[in-house]
């Protein structure tokens, strides 16, 4: 149905109304922060830190969307691969950037077969990818909780102090590789501290993914997403391209959680990965992606908008209304955004 209502100028319509509302909300939050004499530099710095921390997890969604499996609600699969890598590297006691590298390396190695298996499953449940991903994620997270409890890790800094068996729920990275990437190449611009290393890693991965979708394989994946029958006529197996896309998504999620953990300073196990797909999905959607189309630009814009709101909302609201609505705001924006995107399926 046509609605001859308010018409926005072209560039604003391009930007999209949801994005516009969220950007305005963010500007308002910053304005309040300035008005109440808060540490604006600190807030901006925190926002940027969180962009670097979460960015790769958001980026991990892009190949899935481009490959035609939609928003990858099965992100926890890749995250768990990365966590296993992290725990193994911690158990071996590898410090610094080498530790991060080892964790990511092991994570990626695990993520390739896991992603392939997940892709195989998604090929058998076509049309239900998002639902299947969600529940597979839930199931695997619970299964891995048993693993964390029974896994034969012996390093006393990792296992429960009492009993000496089973990994702790939260492993501190202090003194091991806490913020190594954030500190590496860190610099300050007019009082705002920028975590150079993490952003460099995030930027490099963005570039690589961008480049990948300009190679033959990348274009093939995107073409198969666009039209299965076209792909078949061009001799492309769309089942294969979907698996390739799923593997790439899972691998990026594994790297993403390692980078997340070093920046956060803790490795969170057990049920922590359970809901990690949701904020990432909200980010890419706020950036302007749809269930069938996403770009690096959507990843960058979305991550910045969403993470900045989370950073600024807490201190600002506690200043203004003596209470914390940041978690409430997060849940409304995050789930509202996902809901909005789902209602848009099938439209342009």
């Amino acid at each position, binding site marked *: 149905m046509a609605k001859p209502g308010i018409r926005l100028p072209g560039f604003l319509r391009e930007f999209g109304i949801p994005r516009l509302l969220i950007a305005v909300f963010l500007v308002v939050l910053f304005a309040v922060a300035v008005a109440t004499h808060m540490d604006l530099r600190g807030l901006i710095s925190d926002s940027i830190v969180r962009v670097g921390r979460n960015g790769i997890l958001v980026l991990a969604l892009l190949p899935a969307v481009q490959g035609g499996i939609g928003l990858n609600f099965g992100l926890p699969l890749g995250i768990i691969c990365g966590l296993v890598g992290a725990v193994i590297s911690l158990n071996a006691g590898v410090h610094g950037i080498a530790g991060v590298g080892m964790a990511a390396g092991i994570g990626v190695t695990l993520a390739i077969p896991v992603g392939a298996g997940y892709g195989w499953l998604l090929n058998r449940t076509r049309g239900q990818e998002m639902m299947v991903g969600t529940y597979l994620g839930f199931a695997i997270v619970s299964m891995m909780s048993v693993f964390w409890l029974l896994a034969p890790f012996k390093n006393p800094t990792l296992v429960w102090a009492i009993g000496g068996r089973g990994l702790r729920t939260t492993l501190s990275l202090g003194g091991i590789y806490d913020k190594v990437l954030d500190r590496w190449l860190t610099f300050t611009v007019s009082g705002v501290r920028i975590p150079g290393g993490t952003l460099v890693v995030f930027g490099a991965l963005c570039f690589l993914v961008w480049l990948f979708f300009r190679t033959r394989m990348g274009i093939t994946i995107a073409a198969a997403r666009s039209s299965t029958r076209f792909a*078949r006529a061009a*001799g492309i197996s769309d089942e294969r391209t979907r698996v390739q896309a799923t593997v790439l998504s899972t691998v990026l999620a594994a790297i993403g959680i390692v980078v997340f953990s070093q920046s956060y300073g803790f490795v969170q196990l057990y049920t922590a990965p359970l809901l990690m797909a949701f904020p990432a999905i909200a980010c890419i959607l706020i950036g302007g992606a749809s269930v069938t189309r996403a770009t690096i630009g959507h990843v960058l814009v979305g991550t910045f908008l969403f993470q900045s709101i989370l950073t600024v909302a807490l201190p600002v609201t506690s200043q203004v209304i003596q209470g914390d609505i940041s978690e409430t705001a997060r849940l409304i924006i995050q789930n509202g955004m996902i809901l909005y995107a789902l209602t848009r399926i099938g439209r342009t």
Partner: protein
Amino acid sequence: MTSGAPALELRSIVKEYEGNRVLKGVSLSVRDGEIHALVGENGAGKSTLMNILFGMPVIWETGGYEGEVLLGGAPARFHSPAEAMDAGIGMVHQEFMLLPGFRVAENIKLNREPTRPNPASRVLGPKLESLDVPRMRADARRALNQVGLGIDEWIAVAGLPVGHMQFIEIAREVDKANLKLLIFDEPTAVLTETDAEKLLAIMRCLAAKGHAILFITHRLDEVLAVADRITVLRDGEVVGTPDPKATTVVRIAELMVGRPAAVTAQRRFFAPATEPVLGIENLNVDMPGERVEDVTLAVRRGEILGIGGLAGHGKLGIANGIMGLYPGSGRVIFDKALLPLNEPRLALERGLAFVSEDRRGVGLLPEESIELNIALSALEAHGRFLHPFPIQPLRVVDHRAMRAHALEMIRALDIRTTGPSQQVRRLSGGNQQKVCVARAMTLEPRLLFVSEPTRGIDVGAKQRVLEILSALNRDHDVTLVVTSSELAELRAISDRVAIVYRGRIAAVLPPDAPDADFGLAMAGESAKAA
């Protein structure tokens, strides 16, 4: 309806899509009891005009239109199809809008059912009134009689022949009490010849009863047969309103394309002694609706072989089977080596290419740009348009080369577009077909299958596509196998024409063979000839 004012009047309609003026002040009127034919090439603006008349959302999403629409003398501006329908515009679509599981009468009266009050409806409102089935049947019966369809009004629509569905659609529109204008949008495109004639007769009959009819079609002989007035659109402008009694198909075609429509270039007929480049032996293809059974056929190097036959007899299955799109069995020898079937990739790599009859589904990525559509198959099969890099899988697409090639193709094939990055779905049918041909050419095939090259595209583009195919064969030495439902077209460009009947080759004829021979072969009544 007021007597003086025309049923429909359009006054200087102007419409722009993203700065591109597709309608430049179109005016026309349809009087009661009149059939007004609207003809024009694809992309001339017919669909846009219909979208405006029918209040389609796409018009409002792209900034509305200028000009006036008057219905029965009163200004009208529709914001949704529902408004247009309420105002008395009836539309008979190309694709059927019928509920297959519902009965004929239910479809005709859908959402306008006569009802009777019952106790529940007295309490809870008229939405719960019972259906007045006898009246529904009577109304439907009357409407069906008007369109001359003798079927029982109480059977389900599912399973009825295509022709019947078209007539049920018309019956549904005719049954509407406030009908002021009936629009037929390419109604005969999917009908057999007899059904098409019947439909034209009904249109005349409806007009005689006082209905105003706007008739959109590609088939110019139909226009001359039924229209009282004709409006020819070209590039968004009315270029002529020839009097149907004093004009000819050729004259209308000329108006539509803006240049005299030359008869397709005559072929030099091929010297019959050349060696075969493609040998097909005992080919079976399991393509639903176009099954191929035991076809044996040789294609000679450098020729244009036409494959004709009636719909459903399997002519389309041959190319689809060899290219591996539908499961096939048998022996196919290409260039002296066995070609494995059911392997689309291998067929492409061996130098075969295919322009599919299913442009939107198989032939194009409608959401993607023209340049990507043109380059994609060659990129995929031969690794063209990639920057050099030692490690094969890491080579990145060379956008500049892709763009340059697309521009060259746009120029060579005269693709009407705003630029190589335009989405393919925004092109008209003829231009989409040219993109399909461009992609096949980019593969630099030695043998090219082209199925239904001119289906659903207008006169001017038809001519252009056929010329392109001829030139491809002549100048680039590509052997062509052209499958088409239009025999005249096959005979114009082919060196030989094979006629398929019930999945088998009924005859291979020279294009200048008498019409009777073709007729007999299509009816399956001739032994193998020539």
